[in-house]
């Protein structure tokens, strides 16, 4: 039997490597063991994918969804219902890193294709991922590489590849950007077919040799008639690239770092952890699965419980997973997508290529109000299946006294580790409300209401904002 600490470790892993898990799933995984669970997560291909036939039969509009929020809703459906949690979490990681937005691409199905590419490449080599990214039609359009011509470069993609996607600012010159851009001339998309009344056509990558600048380039100290893949080959061998990627992984999976633009000035909070991730990158030739294996099995990860502010997508998806009312196809995923948007993270439409600011910056007055209202509204609803399970569990355990009640709720919703000040407020609430009692139907109804209020308060707290 897994003990409470085993469950807490697995709960931490599942919050980070996925979007949380039900109590039953946590217990099953804990029984199997931590490292075995990490291996399961690292091999999503061994679990069934989302059944597209079922999904599209119930929600035909989702296939090639024409626009927001339906395309966003389709992704939220996958986040909630996936049996491959790490694959979906990494897709979100890559989306936040390679931020591509519908505001400009204006072809939602094409961005959905980009996310599907992230799923396929999520745990492969970083080099292959960057090559796929460079050929991705939504990215080409987003960063104007279709306007990057032999003799008339457009340096948008070349610059962001280096500044935001691989090395970070301060590790290359303006000349490197120009020659990297020259190397990607001719990497474009086939002529677009105008939209038809029912939707859009997918775009396709096209390499136009006649528009490629085949001249000699000088890039990061090397000289040659480089093409785009050569540039990526050089980029992935740069120490700055390993370090930049390691820090992004740390920031997303382990603990909040300062905002990205300050990284060339502010050192990592845990330099040793970043060094370990860099070593994993170097030893494996940039293999993402090796990096993730090291990360999840490391002490720096295991010791970083509740060290990150949840992103809106994490908050929304993990809360509905716990409430258990969005399993399988049903209406309402549009609202979940809009909710992420209102909390400050419009999926598939980041504010700019620099993506969202993370950590404490997810939260301002407006966002906090929405987070609180959303989570408390669901968790306080004792009619929902996931909340019913909590009620039943409390009843079976015979929970009654205030302290026992508060701690059992914190355990079943997490296990959560709350600050003493918040816990004492919850305790005051429980004491004022009086003991739980299940003797008569009327008693049970009152107890249920108290549980709803307690769960609403737990999810409305500041402690709950952390994962």
């Amino acid at each position: 039997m897994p003990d409470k600490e085993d469950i807490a470790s697995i709960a931490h892993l599942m919050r980070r490597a996925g979007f949380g898990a039900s109590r039953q799933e946590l217990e099953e995984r804990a029984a199997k063991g931590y490292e075995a669970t990490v291996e399961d997560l690292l091999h999503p291909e061994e679990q069934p994918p989302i059944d597209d036939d079922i999904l599209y039969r119930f929600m035909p509009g989702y296939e090639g969804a024409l626009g927001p929020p339906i395309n966003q809703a389709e992704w939220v459906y996958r986040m909630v219902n996936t049996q491959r949690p790490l694959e979906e979490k990494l897709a979100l990681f890559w989306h936040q890193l390679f931020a591509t937005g519908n505001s400009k691409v204006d072809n939602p199905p094409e961005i959905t294709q980009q996310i599907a590419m992230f799923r396929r490449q999520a745990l492969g080599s970083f080099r292959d991922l960057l090559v796929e990214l460079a050929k991705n039609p939504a990215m080409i359009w987003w960063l104007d590489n279709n306007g990057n011509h032999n003799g008339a470069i457009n340096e948008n993609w070349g610059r962001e590849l280096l500044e935001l996607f691989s090395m970070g600012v301060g590790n290359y010159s303006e000349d490197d950007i120009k020659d990297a851009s020259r190397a990607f001339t001719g990497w474009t998309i086939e002529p677009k077919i105008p939209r038809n009344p029912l939707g859009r056509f997918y775009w396709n990558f096209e390499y136009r040799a006649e528009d490629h600048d085949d001249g000699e380039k000088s890039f990061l100290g090397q000289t040659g008639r480089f093409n785009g893949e050569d540039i990526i080959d050089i980029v992935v061998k740069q120490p700055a690239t390993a370090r930049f990627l390691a820090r992004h992984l740390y920031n997303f999976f382990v603990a909040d770092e300062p905002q990205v633009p300050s990284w060339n000035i502010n050192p990592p909070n845990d330099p040793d952890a970043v060094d370990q991730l860099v070593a994993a990158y170097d030893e494996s030739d940039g293999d993402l699965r090796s990096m993730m294996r090291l990360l999840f099995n490391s002490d720096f990860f295991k010791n970083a419980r509740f060290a990150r502010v949840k992103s809106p997508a994490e908050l929304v998806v993990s809360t509905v997973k716990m409430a258990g009312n969005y399993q399988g196809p049903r209406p309402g995923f549009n609202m979940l997508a809009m909710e992420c948007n209102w909390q400050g993270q419009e999926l598939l439409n980041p504010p700019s290529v620099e993506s969202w600011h993370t950590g404490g910056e997810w939260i301002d007055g407006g966002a906090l109000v929405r987070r609180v209202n959303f989570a408390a509204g669901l968790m306080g609803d004792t009619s929902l299946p996931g909340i019913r399970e909590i009620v039943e569990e409390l009843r079976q355990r015979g929970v009654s006294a205030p302290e026992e009640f508060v701690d059992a709720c914190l355990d079943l919703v997490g296990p959560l580790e709350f600050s003493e000040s918040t816990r004492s407020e919850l305790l005051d609430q429980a004491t004022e409300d009086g003991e739980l009692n299940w003797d008569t139907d009327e008693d049970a109804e009152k107890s249920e209401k108290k549980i709803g209020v307690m769960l609403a308060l737990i999810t409305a707290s500041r402690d709950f904002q952390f994962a």
Partner: protein
Amino acid sequence: MTVTKKDPVVVILQLTGANDYLNTIIPYNNGEYYDNRPKVNIPQDTVLPIDDELAFNPNLAPLKKMYDDGNVAIIHGIGFENSPRSHFRAMDIWHTCEPDVVGTEGWVAKVVRDLDPKGENVLKCVNFGQGLPRALALRGVPITSVSNLESYGVMSSVPGMTGEQDRARLLDRFARMYAPAIGTGATMDYLGQTGRDALKGADIIKAAPEQYTSTIEYADNGIAKYLRDVVRVHTANLGTQIFYTAHGPFDTHFNQPPMHARLWTEVSRAISDFFDDLREHDAADNLVMMIFTEFGRRVRDNGTGTDHGAGGGAFIIGDNVKGGMYGTYPSLKPEDLNQGDLDPNYDFRGFYSSVIDQWLGLDPVPIVGGQFEQVQFV
């Protein structure tokens, strides 16, 4: 709380993504302009001339009319030295007034701190939009950020807790859970403050939409909606002195002409409707609007759009603004360009200082970090 109706008010409008200044205020008799912009230009016969040299883009017609009425100040050549071509970095510089190091403290938030040193009015500054721009970030300074004015409020959705007594109890417990606690860390402190402020602000601001009526019919787009929200809160007399909102994306690397035209059609109509609405409520005379963008765009076009540049322009609009043009339009001569970009000749911190000093009556030096030449727009 007594509110003096005539407290000065500033509305800040951020054009996100770097607006192309050359195609906004156009040097329409300058051959260099048309030589450099073979594809992405505004034809000479369509512009709205200001004088023999400069003209408004035709999509700014409503602003041109306001300019002719003497209510628009145009500030040429704004920017800063060694302008980075990165949106992220440039916007951070505009937001923090820190061109040399990475700043985290927003200049607008510093203004708010000076207007309300004890943080007594959480509605002193209201942001409309998703998320808070860095200009408004400063620990200890409450900013109310509203994405949707109609639905703003704390713990408004707990099932079975809709009775007034139940709700009062929940809100009281919420306030206690967000009370200052020792030793829980910077982010927890920040969340506590944010929660307490949200609780206060939500209570007050929800009254604003109920009182407002208007004959102005705004267009259906984001900037029109948010500027209408500004009027609704401003006319409710809640003591708000700073409003902030943004529109975009102006990042027109590709297919610029229709995109740029659409954006400016939306923005200029919204601004014109906004001021008409204010006048209808007799609420325009104590308000100015500042418009800025992170940088201008490259002088030479790239075939269908324009890449990141440097120098740009800014605006101050209002009924009590001394309209006209300020500063010098940067030279387009090849020898005067800086890496192919307009060389800024006016420091953006002077633009901020002008409003902080002349309109709000505060000392701009500690806010923008030094003495900078002002434009005498009042």
